């Protein structure tokens, strides 16, 4: 009996240690100028990884390179490798459209489509050939984003009539409707009031069991509250990466300690 338990625990542990994204010396250059310099780290399955650091340290740039959203910036080049399901995201045989379908994104400012709430959710799946019941998918996605109760009676209203916090949860629901393996969030709460922020943070805990989340945040308390792993960046370099507890209580690097204790940034 005890042996079985141990085996289960070992299996759990093994699953916990499964890498979803493996960054190997990733550099991002804008017109030859490096914004991210040789970053190596691992994003683990069903864990929340936060990226913190002062403004302009390259954290958003790094995040956008994880689902090839940087492709739309003129003059950008990526060096190094980002392995996802054992494939380099920047390999020749990889279709960036496919990458973005499997690695979703939530942006800094809520950006719902100027369409109905329903269509905001259904558009992504429909263009990607989703064939199941759309009504169910819309309901499920909205429920996962903790928005269903608030909008279930007005799915045909314009999404632009929602409050900022509701719009951001709609954007999360929209991303979830694609059933992505990874959800990238670029300072998702920076445009929101504290109550909406708390809503989103609660939501992150709920989502953690099913999704792998990478979140960029300005707010160190937020990183400490929500994430399992934390990456601290400065001037394009990854200064320290580790379990959130360790980063915030026993940082190895002096710079990290100075930042998390609020001495600069």
């Amino acid at each position: 009996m005890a042996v079985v338990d141990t085996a289960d625990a070992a299996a759990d542990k093994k699953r916990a240690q499964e890498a979803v994204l493996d960054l190997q010396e990733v550099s991002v250059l804008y017109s030859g100028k490096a914004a991210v310099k040789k970053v190596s780290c691992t994003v683990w399955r069903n864990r929340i990884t936060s990226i913190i650091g002062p403004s302009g340290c390259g954290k958003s740039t790094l995040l956008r390179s994880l689902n090839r959203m940087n492709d739309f910036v003129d003059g950008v080049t990526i060096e190094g490798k980002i392995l996802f399901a054992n494939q380099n995201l920047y390999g020749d045989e990889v279709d960036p459209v496919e990458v973005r379908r499997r690695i979703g994104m939530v942006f800094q400012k809520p950006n719902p489509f100027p369409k109905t709430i329903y269509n905001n959710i259904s558009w992504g799946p429909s263009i990607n050939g989703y064939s199941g019941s759309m009504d169910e998918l819309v309901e499920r996605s909205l429920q996962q984003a903790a928005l269903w109760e608030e909008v279930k009676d007005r799915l045909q209203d314009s999404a632009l009539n929602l409050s900022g916090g509701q719009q951001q949860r709609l954007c999360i629901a929209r991303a979830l409707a694609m059933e992505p393996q990874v959800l990238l969030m670029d300072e998702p709460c920076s445009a929101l009031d504290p109550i909406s922020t708390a809503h989103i943070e609660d939501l992150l805990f709920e989502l953690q069991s099913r999704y792998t989340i990478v979140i960029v945040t300005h707010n160190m308390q937020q990183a400490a509250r929500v994430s399992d792993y934390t990456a601290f960046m400065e001037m394009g370099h990854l200064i320290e990466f580790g379990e959130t507890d360790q980063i915030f209580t026993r940082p190895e690097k002096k710079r990290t300690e100075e930042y998390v204790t609020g001495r600069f940034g």
Partner: protein
Amino acid sequence: MPLSSESAQKQLAARHRKSRMFKHLCAAITWSSVFLLAMLLVRVTMDGLGWLDWQFINSFPSRIPERAGIKSALVGTLWMIVMVAVIAIPIGVSAALYLEEFSKKGRLATLIEVNVANLAGVPSIVYGILGLAIFVRFFALERSLISGALTMSLLILPVIIIASREAIKMVPMSIRYAALSLGATRWQTTWAHVLPSAFPGIMTGVILALSRAIGETAPLILIGAASFMAFLPTGPMDSFTALPIQIYSWVSRPQREFHELAAAGILVLLAVLLLMNATAIYIRNRTEKRLK
């Protein structure tokens, strides 16, 4: 009880005076141009209103002023509007979409951009010469509706392209990113989100361009639109005349009655223009409401 010292108050009063002066200056300029336009309309209406009846609209031109009408010119203009719209809108909007959404920003894009902007400023008579050389002669389309429509399309393409590009630029990047992050292709993003959001702006540009096309006379004279037509065009290869041409030919006659007929023709042209603009505004407001 003054809040500040005397000198500060004096200075403030001077600033307010300046602000008021500028406001009055702007108002004066605005109202003087509106006044000129109103004078013009009043003159034309006084001259032409007496001639404007169903008989005028439903008759072919004639040497006898009492029997003369504008039927062939009105029908010719309507044909033109439809054909120009069908030719110029798809090409112009596609070109704008290509330049804004698909082409790599670089030297070639800049070159095209500068050229399009320059083309918008080329005098219309030059387009007339071009149309004569290319469509009438080279493609041997003769002095037909299609020659006229193609020439007019060339004339207004730059305007449509520039206006559409501006409208497309106004669509926030965040909408594009939202669509692309859901695994949409560039085309899916453009078709489902960029184009609908830019639609009201594109409509405005298109209508302004079409309005310009139906008022243009010079290119049509050059490619040889008829000034006297006693039958209606039945297809794109038929010869034709248009409202501005008819007005021009009446104005150039010595008799006073024909000048008044020209005024009546101008009223018809204005009515067509107003109708088009009203339709555009209606469509624009409806789509804008739907997007909100």
